[in-house]
């Protein structure tokens, strides 16, 4: 039970960092990124590849963040001429292409087997304490990410992003280069998400393509949407709600004794239903974004 609790908290923490990354894009800037998991995948694989090449284990984290920033820049370039809905589909395609490449370039990524044996971060610490240390590290990083996200959102950059979301023409009039804003937002959100991806790889000691399925992006979107898009505390609440649903399903399975297909469907269906209800009746989420009153 204790292990399960630690596991749930750690996973929730990692997802929280990813969701905060998505919030910079979707919440502040209004960018429909449907390929967000690609950033996390880059983090996962950066750590994995760094390990496979025999480099020091921590090199993977900055490497992943750099690669994610590069991808973010490229995605922003892609979006230069596209309307938002077209761009959303393009990002979905980018994520799927990266996943296909990761699945097939066996020399680099281990193909379908993935990269195994990635060391966890506190190998030398004995017993259950390494888990506790890792969870503490994750939670600390969540706090840092949340703090940065609030600062970012309330600062000049965040206000510029919000202005771009609400009134792109006005933002351009005020001298903001929308393209630069977009690419900075993507690089920023991407780097945060890649960090979470690296943590994921260290936690599971494994890098594989299962982390990069499009469904994962949709889970992140659900977290951001139901909590309150554009507000840091809202996003954290959304992560907690979704993780509670996920943690609840195994208990339900043991109680009612149904198979793994039903359990999988129950997870997916519950997330879908929650997201849909939220869109239909409470579009701004449980904790709505607070916009400053102009008066």
């Amino acid at each position, binding site marked *: 039970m204790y292990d399960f609790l630690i596991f749930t908290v750690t996973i929730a923490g990692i997802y929280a960092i990813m969701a905060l990354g998505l919030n910079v894009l979707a919440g502040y800037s209004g960018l*429909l990124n449907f390929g967000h998991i690609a950033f996390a995948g880059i983090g996962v694989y950066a750590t994995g590849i760094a390990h496979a090449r025999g480099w020091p284990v921590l090199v993977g984290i900055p490497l992943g963040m750099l690669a994610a920033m590069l991808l973010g820049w490229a995605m922003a370039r892609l979006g230069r001429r596209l309307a*938002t*809905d077209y761009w959303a589909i393009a990002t979905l395609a980018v994520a799927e292409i990266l996943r296909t490449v990761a699945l097939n370039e066996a020399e680099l990524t281990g193909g379908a087997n993935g990269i195994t044996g990635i060391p966890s971060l506190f190998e030398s610490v004995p017993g259950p304490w390494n888990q506790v240390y890792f969870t503490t590290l994750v939670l600390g990083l969540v706090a840092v990410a949340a703090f940065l996200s609030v600062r970012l959102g309330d600062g000049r950059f965040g206000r510029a992003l919000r202005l771009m979301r609400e009134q792109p023409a006005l933002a351009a009039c005020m001298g903001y280069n929308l393209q630069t804003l977009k690419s900075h937002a993507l690089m920023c959100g991407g780097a945060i998400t890649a960090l979470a991806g690296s943590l994921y790889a260290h936690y599971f000691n494994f890098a594989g393509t299962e982390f990069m399925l499009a469904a994962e992006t949709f889970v992140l*979107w659900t977290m951001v949407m139901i909590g309150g898009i554009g507000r840091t505390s809202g996003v954290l609440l959304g992560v907690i709600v979704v993780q509670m649903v996920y943690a609840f399903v195994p208990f339900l399975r043991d109680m009612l004794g149904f198979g793994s*297909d039903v359990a999988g469907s129950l997870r*997916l269906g*519950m*997330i*879908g239903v929650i997201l849909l209800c939220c869109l239909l009746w409470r*579009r701004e989420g449980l904790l709505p974004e607070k916009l400053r009153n102009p008066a």
Partner: protein
Amino acid sequence: MLQFLVDALLRTADLALITLGLSMLYGLIKFPNIAHVQYAMCGAFLAYAINSTGVPLVVALVLASLLTGLLTLVIQLLVFDRLLKSGPAIAMIGSLAVSMILVAAVLGMAGSFPRMFSVPYAEPLVIAGARLSKTQLWFVLTTLALLAVFVVLLFHTQVGRAMRALACNPALADASGLNATRITNGVTFISGMLAGLGGSMLALSTGAHVNLGYDLLLPVFAAAILGGLGNPIGAVAGALLIALTETVVTNINFGPLFGEALVFLPVSYISAASFLILLLALLFKPYGLFDREVRRV
């Protein structure tokens, strides 16, 4: 060579009906409905379920496509009509939610194991060395017939004209006294039917499985965007182009380039090929290959 053409044609038939429906509906509701490919998956499972109760296959296909049309219409009325009031971005996220729910429902009821239709085995036809099974032949013929019917409907009837008018200029169509709601509902029903039929005919050869929709998502969107979203005939051309590319990419021997005898691209890169076309299309021709409209933005 002929086998190559047959393969490309089969793949086109896989994509054409679903893409056609998606594109046609986009013209009226103006948001890309990600759940559309899941309607195809539902159609496949409905056809399987009806067929397994002993109903003849053809009847099962027709019933399944009608039911899918109905499902599409109900979802459109209950969910998307309301979401669209908050804008296309919200509707698009909503379509994600709908597609999750549909996949979850099918996964829960039918499981993740693929369901094969019990199609009687027949010797494949061999035309000048190209192999083609009877089922596939019927699939291609049905698709072609439906496309022909559709072209006639769209360009030579009152209903088709109303549909085109509404897609082109909703305000003017409304002012001219067209019943926009009725047309939209009709088109929704038809596009759902087409998706259901396309999905269930596809499942005749691959079996009905839960990932049917996800596998179709990007090729179908690539085809629809390539043809210009909202342009049904362009969508079919886009499907043809995607199918040709996928077939070319997997059949070309890259050996001479690398100085080796045989170098083929791994089959799993097929899907990447269509995504790549999609990206290129979005970069250079974001409004499709057949876009003639002048834009000042």
